[in-house]
C-alpha cells in the first residue's frame, strides 16, 4: 500500500508543480523517498520534528503550494494534533496529512507505534476530510482525489501489502460507500484494510444462509449518510468493521447516522478500547478482535438483536393464531 502511495506521489509530482512533500526522517518507510529522488527541490526532510513540519506545511499551503505531509499515523494525529487543528483545519488550508503505518500495522514495534484512534481524532476535527482506503487501487485513487480537492485531508495508510479488492473501473468518491456485495439480512460496513476479511466473513455467513450486504466505506468523513440509512431500512441490522478503537471511528460514525435516521441493532468490530502489543500483524488483528470469525460472530449477534417486524398480513394471521415470538432471530 505504501509503495503504491509513493509511486502515486511521483505521478502527481509530474502533473502538478505545486505539490511538495514533507517527511520526518521516515521517508524510506513512508515511501516518499521516490518523490524525493525525482523532485529534490520539492521534497523537505524535517528530521524528527513532526510539530514543526505540520506548521511549515500550513505556511507552504498559505502561499499556494499543495503539501503532502508524511509521518506515522500516531505522530501525525497526536504529536502534531494541535498544529493540525490551529494552523491547518481552522484555516481550511490545503494540506494532505498522510498517516502511514495506520492501525496495528507497525505490528512488531508494539503499542507505542500503533495507531488505534487516529480516525477518531481527525474525524472530530471540524473541516477535516478523513479517508482510509482498502487496497492498492483505491489508495491510488484516493491520493489522487485528495490532491485534486482543495482543503485539508487525512489519509490513513497501512504499512503492509494488502490483497487487491477492486478491479479497474472502481471509483473513489468523497462521501460515497461502495456496495461490494448485495444482501438482505444485515449489512457489514468496513473501512480500511479489513475489507478482505469482511468479504470472507460474508461468504462464510452466506454458507449458513445469512445474506449479508457489504458496504466498503473508505471515506469516514463526510460519511455516506444515505447508504447507512438505506442499509438500516432495507436490512435492519448492521456490523461495522475497522482496525481502530470501537470508540470514535467508523462504528461511532455509523451509530451517529443510525441515531439520527433509522435506529437498528449495531455491533462494532474493532479494538475494544485498549492497547495492543508487539507481534505478527495478522495474528494481532485476530487477537484484538478483528478475525474473520469475530466478524461472523458479531453478525450473528446483530441479527439476533433484530426485532421481529411482522408484515401487516402476518400480524393479522398472528392475531388469529396467537403471537409467536422471535422467528427472525
Amino acid at each position, binding site marked *: 500500500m505504501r509503495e503504491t502511495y509513493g509511486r502515486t506521489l511521483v505521478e502527481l509530482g509530474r502533473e502538478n508543480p505545486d505539490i511538495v512533500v514533507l517527511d520526518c526522517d521516515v521517508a524510506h518507510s513512508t515511501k516518499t523517498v521516490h518523490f524525493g529522488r525525482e523532485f529534490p527541490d520539492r521534497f523537505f526532510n524535517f528530521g524528527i520534528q513532526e510539530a514543526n513540519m505540520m506548521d511549515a506545511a*500550513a505556511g507552504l*499551503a498559505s*502561499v499556494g503550494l499543495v503539501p503532502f505531509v508524511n509521518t506515522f499515523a500516531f505522530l501525525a494525529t497526536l504529536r502534531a494534533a494541535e498544529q493540525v487543528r490551529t494552523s491547518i483545519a481552522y*484555516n481550511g488550508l490545503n494540506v494532505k496529512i498522510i498517516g502511514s503505518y495506520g492501525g496495528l500495522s507497525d505490528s512488531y514495534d508494539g503499542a507505542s507505534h500503533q495507531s488505534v484512534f487516529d480516525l477518531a481524532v481527525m474525524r472530530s476535527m471540524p473541516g477535516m476530510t478523513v479517508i482510509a482506503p482498502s487496497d492498492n487501487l483505491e489508495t491510488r485513487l484516493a491520493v489522487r482525489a485528495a490532491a485534486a480537492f482543495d482543503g485539508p485531508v487525512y489519509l490513513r495508510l497501512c504499512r503492509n501489502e494488502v490483497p487487491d479488492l477492486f478491479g479497474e473501473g472502481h471509483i473513489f468518491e468523497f462521501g460515497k460507500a461502495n456496495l461490494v456485495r448485495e444482501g438482505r439480512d444485515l449489512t457489514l460496513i468496513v473501512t480500511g484494510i479489513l475489507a478482505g476479511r469482511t468479504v470472507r466473513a460474508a461468504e462464510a455467513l452466506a454458507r449458513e444462509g445469512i445474506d449479508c450486504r457489504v458496504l466498503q466505506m473508505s471515506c469516514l468523513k463526510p460519511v455516506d449518510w444515505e447508504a447507512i440509512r438505506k442499509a438500516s431500512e432495507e436490512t435492519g441490522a448492521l456490523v461495522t468493521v475497522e482496525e481502530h478503537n470501537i470508540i470514535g471511528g467508523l462504528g461511532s460514525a455509523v451509530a451517529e447516522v443510525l441515531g439520527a435516521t433509522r435506529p437498528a441493532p449495531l455491533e462494532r468490530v474493532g479494538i475494544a478500547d485498549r492497547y495492543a502489543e508487539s507481534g505478527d500483524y495478522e495474528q494481532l488483528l485476530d487477537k484484538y478482535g478483528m478475525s474473520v470469525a469475530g466478524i461472523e460472530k458479531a453478525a450473528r449477534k446483530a441479527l439476533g438483536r433484530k426485532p421481529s417486524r411482522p408484515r401487516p398480513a402476518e400480524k393479522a394471521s398472528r392475531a388469529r393464531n396467537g403471537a409467536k415470538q422471535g422467528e427472525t432471530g
Partner: protein
Amino acid sequence: MIFKAQSGHLGGSLSVAEIVTALYFSEMRLDPADPDWPGRDRLVPSKGHCAPALYAALSLRGLIAPETLDDLRQTGCILQGHPCMKSVPGIDISTGSLGHGLSIGLGMALGARLKKQDFHVYVLLGDGELDEGQNWEAAMAAAKHGLSNLTAIIDRNGVQLDGPTEEVMPLEPLADKWRAFNWDVMKVDGHDVQAVVEVLRRARAEARGPVVVIADTVKGKGVSFMENSHLWHGRPPTREEFERALAELDGADGAGEAGHA
C-alpha cells in the same frame, strides 16, 4: 478597544506598538486595495495576543473599518480575540496558540522560494513564547534552508503571564542561543520606530540566512502603572484606569511618533 471589550491583552500589545508601526507603515510591502495580493510581504503574528495592536494598524491602513474596532472579541465581529485569517483582511495566518509562528513563517519562506516570489516573511515572536520547544525545531530548519527571506522579531519585554521570563523559564543567553542555531542576531530598542525600521532594512538587505531581531521592549509601554507588570498581561482596564492610561499616552504622543496606533 480592549476597554470596550473588557477583554484582551494590553501589556503585550503596547510592547509591540512601535514594531507593528514600523512593519505596517514602512517596511511591509502590501496593497490595502488587494489584501490577498500574492506578492505581498507576510507577517506571522506568532504572539497572537497582540491582536489589538495589529487591528489598530490594519484599520489605519484602511484594511478594516475603524468602527469594527469597537466590537473586538464580541459575538459576530470579525475581530477575534486572536488573529483569524479567514475573517480579517490583511491577516496572513491565524495564530493565538503559542509556538507555531516560526514554523509557519519558515513554510511561507520556503514557499516564496519555490514560487520564485521575492516577498519577505516577518514573524513576530513573544519572548515567553520561546519556552515552546517548537521554536527551536523551526530555528534549526530555517538555518538548514538558509532562509534569507525570513526575519524573526522577538518582543523581548521580559515578562510573561506568570511573571518575569527569567524566573518562569530563563531564556538567557538568548542571543547566543540563536547564534548557536546559525541565525544572524541583531538588537534594537523596540520602542524607537526609526531604529526598528533601520534594523529591519538591514536584516532584509544583508541577510545571508535567517535573521532574528531581538527588540528590547517594555510590557505595557507608555502607561506607568502597566509597565513591566505581568498583571497586565491579560486584564482589561477599569474606566478610571483607561482614562489615566489615555492621558499618559496622549502626553507621550506630543513627541510626534506614529506609535500607540
